[in-house]
């Protein structure tokens, strides 16, 4: 067993940290207040290659492994969750699904421009009436010769108004005995006729990001835009979540670290009753908990990343990492505010933003309740990993680096 990061991993950490700290950190409060995404974020992440970090070079990616993706997410969310959300949807939920399920032609057409950051990608599963209960999806895709006609509405979609491509799940078989089996997945170019979208304002957190709705009215897409077979939509969505949740887990770990670091600074600076507040044991207890959850969250996500590298199915481990890290990040941010006292309650400091951002992650990509069901399900052997027709390819240095 080797717990050491490689030089390559450490340099990735430094590079992504440099970008987030130098370029985003100074302006994040301003955009969070404005409830808008800073316009330079996506082009800059594209230019730096972050949007294609763990995709093979021959598809326009940077050829790094899945651990590098996790480390990048940790650094991004240590500055702001909205940066990591970009990686969750563009990379985890969409691009990695194409890598796993897409045909060569689909990889050329969709994955390559996404890996190069020329096209931004999002993931549309949730609907106004269907969140945790994916089988309740009402959007439809009706086959008509060489095309599908899409109708329906997706809700709470990250990057809804920024993305060029959406991976969506819609119902193709209205009569399937098990409604899960009636779902299929499609790549939809969002500039097609009949697509409209908008952002949701007044969110508690991730205010410097875009979260919105996308509506499809008689949107025609070629049949070649279907990912996988008809009826595989649920499986594809769930396997996408194995990757999206990994980025969320890694990001939440960064949020715990940011809460811890802010708390350490403040506790050594603020004085009460004649000494720095860090000297009080009740404050120390909060800090000790943050250290504990940071270290545990990190180990959990790195294990999931390692399993991805090896090509080992990691639904259970990734779910555990996501559940633990997001719950712990909410607690850490809340305790960080407590350590900051009234100052923490103001947006003069970062910790209130951490708390507002942390709350989202215990809801999206499987609520904490859903993850508890998953964990208990595996433990009680009510659940098992059913092999997939297409598994996420294991990381292979040579294959990832090949130009052709």
């Amino acid at each position, binding site marked *: 067993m080797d717990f050491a990061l490689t030089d*390559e991993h450490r*340099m990735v950490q430094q590079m992504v940290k440099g970008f987030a700290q130098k370029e985003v950190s100074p302006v994040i409060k301003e955009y969070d207040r404005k409830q808008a995404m800073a316009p330079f974020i996506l082009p800059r992440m594209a230019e*730096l290659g972050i949007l294609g970090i763990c995709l093979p070079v021959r598809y326009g990616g940077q050829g790094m492994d899945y651990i590098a993706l996790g480390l990048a997410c940790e650094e991004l969310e240590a500055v702001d969750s909205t940066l990591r959300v970009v990686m969750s949807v563009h990379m985890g939920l969409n691009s990695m699904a194409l890598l796993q399920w897409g045909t060569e032609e689909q990889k050329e057409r969709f994955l390559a421009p996404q890996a190069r950051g020329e096209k931004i990608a999002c993931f549309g599963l949730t609907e106004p009436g269907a969140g945790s209960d994916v089988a309740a999806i009402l959007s439809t895709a009706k086959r008509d010769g060489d095309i599908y006609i899409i109708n329906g509405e997706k809700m709470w979609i990250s990057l809804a108004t920024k993305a060029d491509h959406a991976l969506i799940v819609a119902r193709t078989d209205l009569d399937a005995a098990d409604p899960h089996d009636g779902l299929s997945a499609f790549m939809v170019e969002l500039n097609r006729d009949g697509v409209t979208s908008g952002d949701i304002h007044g969110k508690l957190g991730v205010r410097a990001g875009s979260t919105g709705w996308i509506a499809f009215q008689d949107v025609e897409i070629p049949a070649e835009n279907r990912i996988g077979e008809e009826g595989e939509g649920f499986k594809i969505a769930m396997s996408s979540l194995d990757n999206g949740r990994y980025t969320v887990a890694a990001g939440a770990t960064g949020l715990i670290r940011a809460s811890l670091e802010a708390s350490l600074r403040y506790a050594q600076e603020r004085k009460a009753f004649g000494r720095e507040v860090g000297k009080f044991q009740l404050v120390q207890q909060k800090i000790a908990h943050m250290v504990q959850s940071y270290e545990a969250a990190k180990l959990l996500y790195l294990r999931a990343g390692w399993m991805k590298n090896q090509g080992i199915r990691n639904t259970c481990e990734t779910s555990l990492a996501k559940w633990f890290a997001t719950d712990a990040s909410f607690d850490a941010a809340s305790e960080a505010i407590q350590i900051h006292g009234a100052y923490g309650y103001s947006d003069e400091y970062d910790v209130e933003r951490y708390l507002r951002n942390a709350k989202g992650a215990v809801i999206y990509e499987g609520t904490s309740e859903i993850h508890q069901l998953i964990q208990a399900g595996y433990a009680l052997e009510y659940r098992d990993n059913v092999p997939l027709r297409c598994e996420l390819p294991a990381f292979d240095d040579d294959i990832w680096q090949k130009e052709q």
Partner: protein
Amino acid sequence: MKIVVCVKQVPDTAAKVVVEDGQVTWGDAPLVINPWDEYAVETALLQQEAHSGDVTVISVGDEDAKEALKHALAMGCGNAILISDPGLENADSLVTSQVLAAAIQKIGDVDLAFFGRQAIDGDVGVTAAQTARVLGWPSLTLVSAISELDPVSSSIRVERSVEEGRQVVEGKLPAVVSVIKDIAEPRYPSFMGIRKASRAEIPVWSVAELGAEVSDPVVSWPEISNPPKQEVITEIISGGSPAEIAETLAEKILETKVL
């Protein structure tokens, strides 16, 4: 165009550098490439991009210094060389410059050697000039812009930022150039660069291999101590209007007799 850039591995700017038992320590703070040297690497790469050629990054230090070299490789430098020797443990800037000069000569046919203005650990800021002196090359220090570089006529024109203002200086190649922040914003390492750097086998040269004539250090540190602790009291002045705040502030300043 053959370019060398000299870099040093130093404690991170955020590190708390203190004296403990007569020794300087920065605890377990990470070591990084000297931030000023990143500007030198950036300048070297920009010149390479403009005039083609290659950039070799060199460092005098122990095994740790390979990290600084790898950072420069990841930014885009073509080659890296570490100069490491137990005899260099107490090297001062004179010794370091003799070693660097010997390495630059061993590399051979170098047109330009870039340095950062100073290293943030020692903060001495003379290594570039001393290296130029040892090499017998023009020393262009505190450069904020390279306005002209002509490899054909072997000439360079730079702007220096000096206390009196801006100074335009011309020189002949080969030359030593030390740069300041205004020169160009250092790029981040690229993922491709990171991959290359992490796989790079960095050659290590000893002083004997360089055939360098190295003097004894002329600077020694007989005793070092922490600066006296300063108590800083912060007070935030509030008030109903900017004018009121300014008035209270003015009164406070007068009260403390700092003006």
